[in-house]
């Protein structure tokens, strides 16, 4: 740790407060839309939201632009690099815990709540609430079908989901090839493998959209079709958002690579994006097994 003398402490920065204003406008805009959605005027909310998003995008370009400039000016030493690595690792851990909350909810309803509603155990919920209710998983018949009409069927895991699994697993391999190519400074291969990774992600998302359309239009499997649809769409939906974000990050990384931002030795931006991509991949494998197959 003898390198500590040169640890880079940035001067004052306007980006955090801009980020705060952007975040505040985005979220309070969304809340305003939701408060007014039944009967009220939602245009104020949408305006706040849109301005907030614009501010956030401006901030992201500016803040990451600063970081890229500082990095290329050689201000970051090995210790700074370790701070970034710790930061990214713990951020991914927080994402893991966010998904855990939803996986936990899935386990709870599937193995406890639904069987209890169906009369299992010592409780009397079945006779007191919906005595005709029979529990099953996937839950096609909800306790109160008038309020929550259940889905007719669920997605077959051995069709699109299997294909999507292959796509994402392949993309984890291609991004590793890109990483090896960066280390060897083989610029053409880096671009090729990164572009292929992004393409695989995009195809995955396309299939996911197709699957959602099928679920909504042909299976009546929707967000409001009871707890199966709830857990299915929330888990796969949040995952899809993360794939989208990951693909955007990788695209930015590809563009930065083409501008010569990364060297064979210093490319933590790329590595962080790759970690994120692998994380998204692992979540998908859990989804495929626990949501689609089981």
């Amino acid at each position, binding site marked *: 740790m003898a390198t*500590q*003398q040169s*640890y880079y*402490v*940035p001067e*004052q*920065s306007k*980006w*955090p*407060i801009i*980020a*705060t204003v952007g*975040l*505040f406008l985005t*979220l309070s805009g*969304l*809340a305003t839309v*939701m*408060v007014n959605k039944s009967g009220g005027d939602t245009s104020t909310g949408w305006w706040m939201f849109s301005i907030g998003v614009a501010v956030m995008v401006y901030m992201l370009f500016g*803040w990451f632009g600063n970081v890229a400039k500082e990095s290329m000016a050689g201000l970051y030493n090995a*210790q700074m690099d*370790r*701070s970034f690595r*710790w*930061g990214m690792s*713990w*951020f991914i*851990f*927080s994402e893991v*815990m*966010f998904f*855990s*909350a*939803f996986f*936990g*909810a899935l386990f*709870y*309803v599937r193995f*406890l*709540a639904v069987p*209890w*509603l169906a009369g299992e*155990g*010592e*409780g009397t919920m079945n006779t007191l*609430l919906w005595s005709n209710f029979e529990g099953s998983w996937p*839950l096609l018949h*909800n*306790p*109160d079908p008038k*309020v*929550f009409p259940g889905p007719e069927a669920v997605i077959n895991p051995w069709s699109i989901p299997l294909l999507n699994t292959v796509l994402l697993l392949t993309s984890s391999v291609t991004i590793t090839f890109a990483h090896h190519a960066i280390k060897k400074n083989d610029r053409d291969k880096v671009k090729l493998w990164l572009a292929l990774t992004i393409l695989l992600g995009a195809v995955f998302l396309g299939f996911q959209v197709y699957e959602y359309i099928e679920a909504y239009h042909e299976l009546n499997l*929707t*967000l*409001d*079709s*009871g*707890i199966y649809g*709830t857990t299915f769409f*929330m888990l796969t939906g949040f995952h899809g958002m993360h794939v989208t974000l990951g693909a955007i990050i990788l695209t930015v990384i590809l563009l930065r690579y083409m501008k010569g931002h990364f060297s064979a030795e210093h490319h933590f931006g790329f590595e962080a994006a790759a970690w994120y991509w692998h994380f998204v991949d692992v979540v998908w494998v859990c989804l495929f097994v626990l949501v689609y197959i089981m």
Partner: protein
Amino acid sequence: MSAVLGADAHHHHGPAKGFKRWLFTTNHKDIGTMYLWFSFAMFLIGGTMALVIRAELFEPGMQIVHPEFFNQMTTMHGLIMVFGAVMPAFVGLANWLIPMMVGAPDMALPRMNNWSFWILPFAFAMLLSTLLMEGGGPNFGWTFYAPLSTTYAPASVNYFIFAVHMMGISSIMGAINVIATILNMRAPGMTLMKMPLFVWTWLITAFLLIAVMPVLAGAVTMMLMDINFGTSFFKAEGGGDPVLFQHVFWFFGHPEVYIMILPAFGVASQIIPTFSRKPLFGYPSMVYATASIAILSFVVWAHHMFTVGIPLAGELFFMYATMLIAVPTGVKVFNWVSTMFRGSLTFETPMLFAVAFVILFTIGGFSGLMLAIAPADFQYHDTYFVVAHFHYVLVPGAIFSIFAATYYWLPKWCGNMYDETLGKVHFWMSFIGLNMTFFPMHFVGLAGMPRRIPDYALQFADFNQISSVGAFVFGTTQLLFLFIVIKCIRGGKKATAQVWEGADGLEWTLPSPAPYHSFSEPPTVK
């Protein structure tokens, strides 16, 4: 030390001028100061709400506020004190102290540090604004159980949800910064087992924050979806379960109570050795005890839910797991007492608060053990006994440790000694006020007075009047604290670098007030 002074002369310049210093700062001391002032402002706002509650409860019958507004007061008081007062105060202390304690130039990620802070005033502006909205603010208790917080919630619940999201983002980024600083920025020779205990407790707290704040985000996201998009997480008609909310919430909520107390343990472990003029007794066992408490905190959450109808095996598991926590906590109390044993004790204000912390927190711990007994909890659940219990761990626990820390390190921060006489007055008034407020709540709780209700049966009147008088004593005393702090910042006896005769640690090798940039060159730790 001379190296530090020398380094400061040629490295970086001082703070920027005007409001930009605070808006754009990347300095851990500026950010720590903002956290602490923000926390104190929230402490006064949340405290005022507590006084509204106590004024209403001064006599049986409806007195001054509408029951609907009373519900908003209990809810907002809890939310503001937990997320706005206690947590930011500890992050403020972490910002000020951790870089100085581990010999670092600043926090590991200074710009993100600024962002973590500035999110908070915006989040609380959003939360507080709900009180003025149509239908009122959150009225479902700080634990916001579904369906009270979903099906039956006022429309403003959407703002509440996004405010909680913002607080979560702030906490997670703050915690990542603390972890990266501790793991990566220590001076040469500062091995993990040489770190001051305040740093250790914060390392573990930061881990807890990163582990559970996303779960809270998950809980409010499920609420948002149930309210606006027709999902059925908490709706039995669709196969969901309102009890699911409680599981997700308390999986966050129980580690959260340790998030609010572990840094307090750290503060006590810094202060008690100083004024005992002895090294801390059992340093390694303190570290292991803190880690054990943190790990156990993940497997005890359903002790908050003994009465909702969980299976017998669950009641037993969560009962015994909860009682296990008393073991590492007992180790800590034993170590603090052993540190004082045969020490050359003096009782300056920080020590008074620290000793009161040990004694009164132990009372709160014991009432916690009573609540952990599942069959007994069936009696205590949702009574004032619970209110007495958690205020005994939070007020003389978390809040007293924050007072203690402020008095202990304030001379280091501003270069002046505080007024010792006024500090002692503040301590004794707070001590008397808080015991008057919360001790009688044990009795009315055991006698069956339910919590969160604006009215009560006549036989509880005497004890409630004592509580209310105590609350106003405690509340007004905190204005004295504000006065003492401002007086100290504006002037007073100059503090030496070491400040306290028995103080030990890197922060005391820096001059008082500490220079704007801490250790530009790393000190060497033997």
